[in-house]
């Protein structure tokens, strides 16, 4: 599935993976996010933490007639204000996508799938 943008010169197809990768890239650079979780692994109680090359797995992009909705499944470091981390991720992802692709992002939904305790001793 791809997103199609038309202009007077023709059309531009952007694969959903491109959107997911840009969003994922913005997420892992976001402060407070220590991992991404695939949506389904979590159901079994094993939050599989994904490496950065697997961005697309914690990122679900939906295109409804040109409106882009993004769902992000993240793991936040323990002892960080979760709501603030999530808000920052939302604004960063929206900004990055709008800036790089010129897309209109309708929503960025954050699903905090876990909190990882960061061992400060080591």
């Amino acid at each position, binding site marked *: 599935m791809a997103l199609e943008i038309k202009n007077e010169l023709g059309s531009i197809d952007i694969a959903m993976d491109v959107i997911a990768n840009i969003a994922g890239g913005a997420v892992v*650079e976001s402060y407070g996010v220590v991992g991404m979780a695939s949506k389904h692994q979590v159901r079994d109680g094993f939050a599989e933490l994904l490496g950065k090359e697997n961005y697309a797995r914690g990122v679900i992009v939906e295109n409804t007639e040109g409106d882009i909705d993004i769902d992000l499944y993240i793991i936040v470091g323990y*002892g960080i204000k979760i709501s603030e981390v999530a808000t920052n991720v939302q604004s960063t992802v929206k900004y990055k996508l709008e800036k790089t692709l010129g897309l209109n992002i309708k929503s960025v939904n954050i699903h905090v799938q876990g909190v990882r305790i960061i061992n400060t001793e080591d």
Partner: protein
Amino acid sequence: MDKIDGKMFRNMILSGAENLRQHAEYVDSLNVFPVPDGDTGTNMNLSMTSGANEIEDREDEHIGTVGRHFSKGLLMGARGNSGVILSQLFRGFSKAIEDQDEIGAEEFSAAFEAGVKTAYKAVMKPVEGTILTVAKDSADRAGEAAGKESSIISIMEAVIEEAEASLKRTPDLLPVLKEVGVVDSGGQGLVYVYEGFLSALKGEAVEAGSKPAGKDTFVNDVHEFDDFMSAEDIDYGFCTEFMVRFEADKREFDEDAFRQDMSEFGDSLLVISDDEIVKVHVHTETPGEAMTYGAKYGELIKMKIENMREQFREIQEKKDASAGRKQEGQAYDTAIITVSSGEGINELFRSIGATHIINGGQTMNPSTEDILRTIEDEDVKQVIILPNNKNIIMAAEQARDMLEIPAVVIPTRSIPEGLSSLLVYSPDEDLEQVREAMEASLEHVKTGQVTYAVRDTKIDGMEIRKNQHMGIKDGKITGADDSREATLKQLIESMLDEESEIVTVLIGEEGDAEEVERIISSIEPEHDEVEFEVHDGQQPVYSYLLSVE
């Protein structure tokens, strides 16, 4: 100084918070990453203030306790990326000293490093050239300094020196900063916090100018007017804002008395003051008098007067204007957009149901945007577009694809095709049925055009001289003649066959109704099954347009 205890740490925090607060606006102005929303300073200030509030009233000597409360306040009040990072830096910092009564150089520098460690752990892929980098570089330097020095002040000086140097390097690490020509905003905020720490260590803490009122923020009040108001209903017409900086030789300031006196001038009164300054916001009929009164207390700074009645009228006018446009642009269930030229043809299109006419045709092709623009801001549920020219069909199709409502393009290549397809339009059927019927009607239409040659040419083995009249049938030249009348007659006859029923002639700007009459009366006797219809199209370029169905 070799040791710091809880009280000193508290002073450092308050001083750091105050120094950051005073520079928050500048920090905001640097904010370009990750989102250039200009709120880093504000966010860091709110986060830091939240931390400072937790310890402000505490008198603990135990530095670990102070750190714990500070850390908690920071966590709870963390705002924005840099605020969250700040909270993590001091969370690690505080954790490292949590069991201590007081700390020396060694512990102090170790606490900086612990803060950086904690802060870095909370991000998968740290972006260098941010507050993180500044914190890391300066903490490294603290470690070095602690090996040689036992003075806390010396260590803090080393930390700041390196933090500033690191801050200067941020544009080399983060290209967006270089592009804009700024250093990292969060890093700059951290430097201000550290500077405040140092001031406190030196016993010259940044003065926390009593409960401040955010000195620059309020001369920008937004006034909203309710719909039911009219300009005449406004009792006090001038929104007046000013600040007074108190002066020793002027009247002594008493807030209650001041507020009481100000309330005489009007309503919507706001009086905010600290030791040095009072800010006033009042709606009054006599702004000058209100300010004159204010001037009794000191020097007036930052004045602003706005005429609210005038603002209100402008808003109303804008509203009326936009309401007017809305009324003109009617609501259509189905917008039928057609491209044509010539008042008579436009009128014909309108009379048979076209809702929007775009002027255009052989010499000026409307763009996709022109087509879209005709119906923007209108309440339209679906759209039918008749391009009426083969060169416009593409633009029309693009417009169709860009519309968010159902739309179809009937590929009409001429005005007569457009007219005859529109004649079969039935508003009761769904769009797809309509499109099929309209397209099908095109098969039965033959289009003829009479125009003149703009230069000598040779087409299809036919010599045509400049200014000769040409007959064109469905895009192919059928004949050329010096006589326009002869050209038209020959064209009509070439288009007629046994199945022809209606011949429609649209007379252009250069056409002549009498010519058409003569031709019809000469052809009719031979073709008594054919009906002739003549309209005054007033189209340019084509002296005659005709369709045969």
